[in-house]
């Protein structure tokens, strides 16, 4: 659903005095509640509630052909920063294997809750036997580590959420 489509839906809600709407499709679930029906009518701040709290606009879903039967369907990737407003995502700049520590028996570079400085090493990604250190782009608190140790990561995959301080 595009923002434009959402806007059309919301306009329709206002026009029609709808106070609550739940819409679930295979692609999305939409819930809208509009308070103060009376105000809608009696005062001109008709669209205030909507303007004040625009529902989150979901990423556009591809009108993608589904591989039927067992065909795998790429999941709409969850956007991790939804869980942590204001957080900065550290994404994988290369493809490889994610390691939290410089060696199997070494302690991890960082844990959730740690304070890190800009330029501090957060993890390594091994690609073709080379260990690539991934540094933090900001100073802040490690709010979440999104990948398990030893897991493969693709280009652009979110690795950490860091709350800048």
């Amino acid at each position, binding site marked *: 659903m595009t923002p434009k489509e959402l806007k059309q839906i919301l306009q329709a809600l206002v026009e029609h005095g709808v106070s609550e709407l739940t819409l679930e499709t295979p692609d999305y679930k939409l819930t809208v509640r509009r308070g103060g029906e009376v105000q809608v009518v009696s005062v001109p701040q008709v669209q205030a509630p909507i303007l004040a709290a625009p529902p989150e606009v979901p990423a556009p879903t591809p*009108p993608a*052909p589904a591989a039927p039967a067992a065909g*795998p369907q790429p999941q709409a990737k969850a956007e991790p920063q939804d869980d942590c407003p204001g957080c900065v995502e550290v994404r994988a700049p*290369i*493809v490889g294997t994610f390691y939290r520590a410089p060696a199997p028996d070494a302690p991890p570079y960082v844990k959730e809750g740690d304070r890190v400085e800009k330029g501090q090493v957060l993890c390594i990604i091994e690609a*073709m036997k080379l260990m690539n250190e991934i540094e933090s782009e900001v100073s802040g608190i490690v709010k979440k580590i999104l990948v398990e140790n030893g897991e*493969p990561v*693709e*280009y652009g995959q979110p690795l950490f959420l860091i709350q800048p301080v």
Partner: protein
Amino acid sequence: MKKVLIANRGEIALRILRAAKELGIKTVVAHSTADEKSLPVLLADEAICIGPPPSGQSYLNIPNLLSAAIVTGADAIHPGYGFLAENATFAEMCREHGITFIGPTPENMRALGDKATARKVAREAGVPTVPGTDELGSVEEAKRAAQEIGYPVILKASAGGGGRGMRVVHTEEELERAVLQAQEEARAAFGNPAVYLEKYIEEPKHIEIQVLGDGERVVHLWERDCSIQRRHQKLLEEAPSLLPEETRRAIAEAARRLAEHVGYVSAGTLEFLVDKEGNFYFIEMNTRIQVEHPVTEMITGIDLVQAQFRIAQGEKLWLKQEEIQVRGHAIEVRVNAEDPEKGFRPSIGKVETLLFPGGPGIRVDSHLYAGYQIPPHYDSLIAKILAWAPTREEAIRRMERALSETVIEGPGLKTTIPFHQKVLQNAFFRRGAVYTNFVARRMEM
């Protein structure tokens, strides 16, 4: 072979995916962020993002591709065409990492990689190349050479390319002046006055021979006529050509011999120019699967991409030359997202309405689906439509029928279909009078 990483995009990624599925091999599609919602990605067993949209950082990014194969557990890589398909270093690195590169060996690529080396190999194998000289020392040398080669000849700048400094000479009287002018032009254009001389082939046909080799034995799968080109871009291909049977056999056998001479592995194509007398000259070899390979698949019934997989797994050639029989005639049109009315300007956009042709003798290779946004970062090929019929005339009519029922529409989206419809209706085309300057000469485009 259990799992293949497909290091390409678009229709060829889908083509490889289909071959792998039919062979029971799992697929991983490596893709840029721009191709995240592409059809090959949606249909693959797995997908892995290997970089941002620019191909230099994704589809040409060797470390990320190899790493992607390693982390997904793929034991083979199919490079498709373009990108890294003819990169010997990449093929070598795959080998070093224990990953099967589905294609020729690095040695094959190096033996045939550049035109000059390939010409040398061809001469060793007794395959004719376009007669020519090295850099000319004097006008006298040019005269002697031209006499030996036979007029018309063409002068080319050693440092040149793209037509600058080129000069066609029909008689000895014109030669001296032409050499001086060409040298002057070459100096002006490239800062180097050196020119050389080559036989000028008038209105040649562009004929290419498909081969399959296992490193020891090579078979040919006959030819394709790819003369319908615009600015050296192939637009429409067909097979078989309209050359006399004995010419067809001679070219095909020469190509087979050349490929066998270098111990060629996998699918490859040898390109020739053929003049009006049926003389043929080897130009270069494409050491990869080609865009137009389905034309050959349709007339021979042989799946070339599956063959690549089987050869890469070490299977010895299962085909004897005499078993490869041509049936009927096939034509391919390349549907590009380009506006033929505006100089073939790329025309990108979202595909909103999509209807591909069906019925007898039609094949469609396309990664489009309704709702697909054509990304602006890559080439404009969006579909290959093929028609097969018992005869060329029937194949042409079938293709016209197929194009008349094709719908690829979206805001601002233009395709080359109207161009192809004009080619198919062209009287010269219909009687087979095609040569590399057909589009310029007969269609004035």
